[in-house]
């Protein structure tokens, strides 16, 4: 769920960073933990991570921007990810993605104006024998058809 995240708080951020800073190669672990708590990785957290891991700010920023998962701003209240890889393309995923875009009025990679739904592409959920597939707020859905994609979009808009 993308609802129910904590607002950014420096002390809480420092606590999360400290919790994982002792691990080998902790940068990704910390960025994941921050995003799990706040829904995105707030900018003030970057120099704090750098300080804790004895890295430069640029290094942490570089890691943060390299990976598709990390957000620099909160997502919409719900995140609908549509698998756009080959197995889902073969099973009619292109038309379903276009349908979801039209219903929501945004293209893949964007959030609706009312901040309710973020629509994103994802490259393979590993549900390739029950394609096309999607993920709504962490819940997986396979064998999508027009009726199911409409229901998912309606659920995300609520």
């Amino acid at each position: 769920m993308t609802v129910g995240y904590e607002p950014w708080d420096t002390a809480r951020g420092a606590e999360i960073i400290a919790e994982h800073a002792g691990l080998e190669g902790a940068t990704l672990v910390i960025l994941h933990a921050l995003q799990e708590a706040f829904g995105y990785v707030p900018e003030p957290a970057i120099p704090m991570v750098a300080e804790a891991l004895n890295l430069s700010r640029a290094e942490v920023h570089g890691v943060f921007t390299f990976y598709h998962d990390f957000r620099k701003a909160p997502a919409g209240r719900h995140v609908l990810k549509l698998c756009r890889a080959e197995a889902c393309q073969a099973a009619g995923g292109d038309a379903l993605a276009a349908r979801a875009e039209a219903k929501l009025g945004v293209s893949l990679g964007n959030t609706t104006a009312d901040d309710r739904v973020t629509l994103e592409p994802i490259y393979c959920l590993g549900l390739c024998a029950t394609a096309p597939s999607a993920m709504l707020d962490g819940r997986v859905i396979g064998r999508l058809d027009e009726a199911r994609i409409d229901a998912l979009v309606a659920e995300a808009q609520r």
Partner: protein
Amino acid sequence: MTMRIFVPRDAAAVGVGADDVALAFAQAAAARGAAIEIVRTGSRGLCWLEPMVELSTAQGRVAFGPVTPGDVPSLLDAMAGNGQHALRLGVTDEIPWLKRQTRLTFARCGVIDPRSVDDYRAHGGYRGLERALTLTSDQILADVTASGLRGRGGAGFPTGIKWKTVAQASADRKYIVCNADEGDSGTFADRMIMEGDPFVVIEGMTIAGITVGATKGYIYIRSEYPHAVEAMNAAIVAARRAGLLGKRIGGSAHEFDLEVRVGAGAYVCGEETSLLESLEGRRGIVRAKPPLPAHKGLFGRPSVINNVLSFAAIPFILDNGAKAYADFGMGRSRGTMPIQLAGNIRYGGLFETAFGVTLGELVDEIGGGTFTGREVRAVQVGGPLGAYFPRALFDTPFDYEAFAARDGLIGHGGIVVFDDTVDMVKQARFAMEFCAIESCGKCTPCRIGSTRGVETINRIINGERVAENLAVIEDLCNTMKFGSLCALGGFTPYPVMSALKHFREDFGPAPARLQAAE
């Protein structure tokens, strides 16, 4: 008498309603006061029948599927009565699609409770480790080498040689790294085994650890697989509690422990050196080789890095001997391959079989053609970096060398089927687009070549100077193939060139016709 009912918890089954079915069973049983025990298992891999539930009977497990919550009351009646039901599929092990397979790696997947060490042991689990603990490192290496096992991630490098290199290296620390960054579309075997039989991965990695002298292992799982992350973490906790991870494994002098690390949506991190960078907390930028990871891997230490399926094949080999594994297969491809049938296919799922089965058998006989009922036009084998094969090449046997000889690769064993509505020039463009999105940026052929590739294919689609632009694509593909640092840039030409070679008609008018028209 309590009825034991098995309902999968595999993501593919959950995605089509398995959780709702499990809940419906619990509610319906409570409402009528029936005594049932629901065991959540992995998936048997017959994906078109999911959610497929099973009932324990005197004749063995009996399967029903695909089940919806609405079917549950009548199913419970049938299970308590004579067993007859419209969804009844018969004794699970006798279902032809399953019976035809040779399940060595996936023997327990869908059968056992993936949260229970005891269930794993009751089905032959940990016998491989027990035997390994009685052997020397050299003896284990001899077994792994003699089995003929080759890296199941796609490169097909002999596992025994890789392990031996690490075993012979001297260092203060060594690592075992499991590559569970299964990013190829059309592949899901890693996900299935981690969700359905996580202990087999743990056991395989533990054997690797004691063989090469490593005490710490990492499993790098992609973030798109939350169910697998949960299953592996739960299994690691259970294995520790049972004394099978940690200090003094199984009462021996060996120490080995595991940790799961989660990726962050970068496809290139499935490349082993990029994965190591990511595990170390950096951008997933590919490293130049040499040095090999076996010499200087994770944190600069000698490291065994293998795919999930490679580790998962190890317990069988140690338990049953190298010969039992090597007896399957053809040529230099020994043992079995868990093949994944996906995309527009009628009977999709996981089909583990000895190497040597032909592509045509897999797609037409086993897969049953397309679910749309239209002609199969193209199949992509080996993920986004794999070649598209036309029907004319369906006699190709599933074997590393046979696919290479036809300018393709088996990769991680995924087969994606397309019907005759596919536009192959668009698939070629997608291959370039995907490479452009996922390129780590280190080498020029991949970083720039993929973007130029998208632009050039767009010109071809628009009908601009088609012959000249096709020549540019060929030249570009050669540059990428021979000039890229890793398989992302190096193999993207496979789907592009195979689409062009076998489906030339989708790329605009042929040169001769163009001249005639002028």
